[in-house]
């Protein structure tokens, strides 16, 4: 039988996303990209 190409799901959508890219895409403006400062805490 001929080999068929199975469907593949790519978690990264062909882009190597770093931590900062992920947060950026979510519209987060955290300190240094991924640091939550104490005064940002929800009381």
């Amino acid at each position, binding site marked *: *039988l*001929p*080999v*068929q*190409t*199975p*469907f*593949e*799901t*790519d*978690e*990264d*959508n*062909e*882009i*190597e*996303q*770093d*931590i*900062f*890219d*992920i*947060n*950026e895409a*979510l519209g*987060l*403006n*955290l*300190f*240094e*990209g*991924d*640091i*939550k*400062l*104490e005064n940002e*805490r929800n009381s």
Partner: protein
Amino acid sequence: IIGDEYRWPHTIPYVLEDSLEMNAKGLILKAFEQYRLKTCIDFKPWEGERNYISVFKGSGCWSSVGNRQQGRQEISIGQSCDRLATIEHEFLHALGFWHEQSRSDRDDYVTIMRDRIQAGREHNFNKYDDKTSDFLNVPYDYTSVMHYSKTAFMNGTEPTILTNIPAFIDVIGQRMDFSEYDIQKLSRLYNCTSSLSFMETCSFELENVCGMVQSTEDNDDWQRITQVSSGPQDDHTYAGICQETGYFLHFNTSTGNPGDRAVLESRFLYPKRGFQCLQFYYFNSGSEGDQLNILVKEYTEENPNGTLRLVGTIQGSPVGYWELHHVSLNVMSKFRIVFEGVKGSTASNGGFSIDDINLSETACPHHVWHIRNFTHLLNSSPLGLEGKLYSPPFYSPEGYAFEVSIYVNGSTTPFNLAMYVSLISGANDDFLQWPCAWQQVTVVLLDQHPDIRQRMSNVRSVTTDPTYVQESSGEYLWDRPNKVGTNASFPNGTQFMRGPGYGTSAFLTHERLKIRDFIKDDGVFILITTEDISHLISTEQNFTTTQTPHQMTTTDVCAAYGCQNDGICIVVDGKPVCRCPVGVDWWYTGDKCETKGTKENTVIIAVASSLSIFAVMLIITVVTACCIKKKYRKKINAINNLKFQNASAF
């Protein structure tokens, strides 16, 4: 961050909130194992301690820096953050680390290109003076897992960070594992002298062979050498770097008699966890009759001279390259590892060799996939019909059959390795639950550094979510391969069905692949582990706490105990106990109120018991009556016979 108030205790209490993705939960536990292996930091489920880390699925990946002494401190592991190095990165923040390029001395090592930074994001490139941040006398680390990548916050296509040593431009921003300097800094910050799970590493470079001893109860010895004419030509430690420099241990089977033995014993080792993984490289240039036995010599009070136990045997035809072997141990008491070489009866031109031994109290990988001639693959055009390499099939402990595929040249991005996991049809499919639920497949591209503590292996995990539906087909992705898969065949021609793949096109860039020791002896090793993580579905501990601004007191430590059927949990001697609900004619019993009883049940039991006793008594009475009747019948017959005999005589 400078300040003792920011330090955590060496064992950090944590909670994994139920909001986390299952794959993230499994990976967080793996990240903890890396901390246990390489640092003195350990983690334990929160039991009401004043401060603890709560990991949840928020928006994005983030953490605070240091222990903020606020009771519950959050780390968010959101969508796409479920990567081992990302989790290590966020926990390093929580342990007190800023980003590497914010060090006070960073301008000596990197140049920040201000005009390439997105507007409003300039503050991300601040640096701290040495009153706020301490680099603990550790050199600037381009390889840190805490460094930004060159593209961080760029407004176009040009990098925002240039390394002053150009060779490091593609090194910064690695998301593989802790660097050597990350470990050094963490160890200095927390005064680490040892780790929980590391036990021993030995590449035989020093003459003392790591304290290993040649046994006197054998008739041959292992030799510490740099080369064997029939192979190996190089040791494994410096393979591809330097010839005749590194040493390995060799057992020569080309001379001597069948049955000759050479026994090498490690120094005494003291286990803490009760399970270990021995990993070593092995080169066979002898004959298929030669045998390497791995034993443990356990010392207990009952057996102070040690008891030998065989834990593994390696035998086979010479293959002409270094192979990687793992042996799982489960030793609880003081022990030694014993390597016993035994010469076989068939002719040999060489012998076998061992190198780069690592022993740790961690779980061994389940499968090893060795891809040889890798440089050629990397440099060649896409391979075969699909440009992919498929691993041999392997089974999870639950019986699911899997396959891992690696696309050496990437799918559409030519500079990445791609990696996908697929279910394939297997021998147990009729007896398994479909869609396949919560099997976590962890794929490790091994950094073959001789010391396990300095490896920066690349790890990705895929977890089978039984509810995940493919958009294209509307079918469950992890359903039975016979149903959702396509035809495929093994190299030997055997047909099977391969389910859809799930993974990443950005497993590792070629640039990163070429650094470290991913490729050694022109081969790469891919370690695969499959675990059922369904026990992680519910990990949250709903401790009832009263919280003051800086103090948290535990009033209920038993919510996680899980009393069922509305049972009420109370704490007795520090342990949770369930008090079960009782009604007029029903009640619950059992440790967790899991069994229901009713009044009707009691009546039924009483009647059934009475009837049973009556039946048993009746049977006994009938049997007794029959026996007595039989006995008297025999006597009467005997008397009648006697009368008849007497009458005949007269």
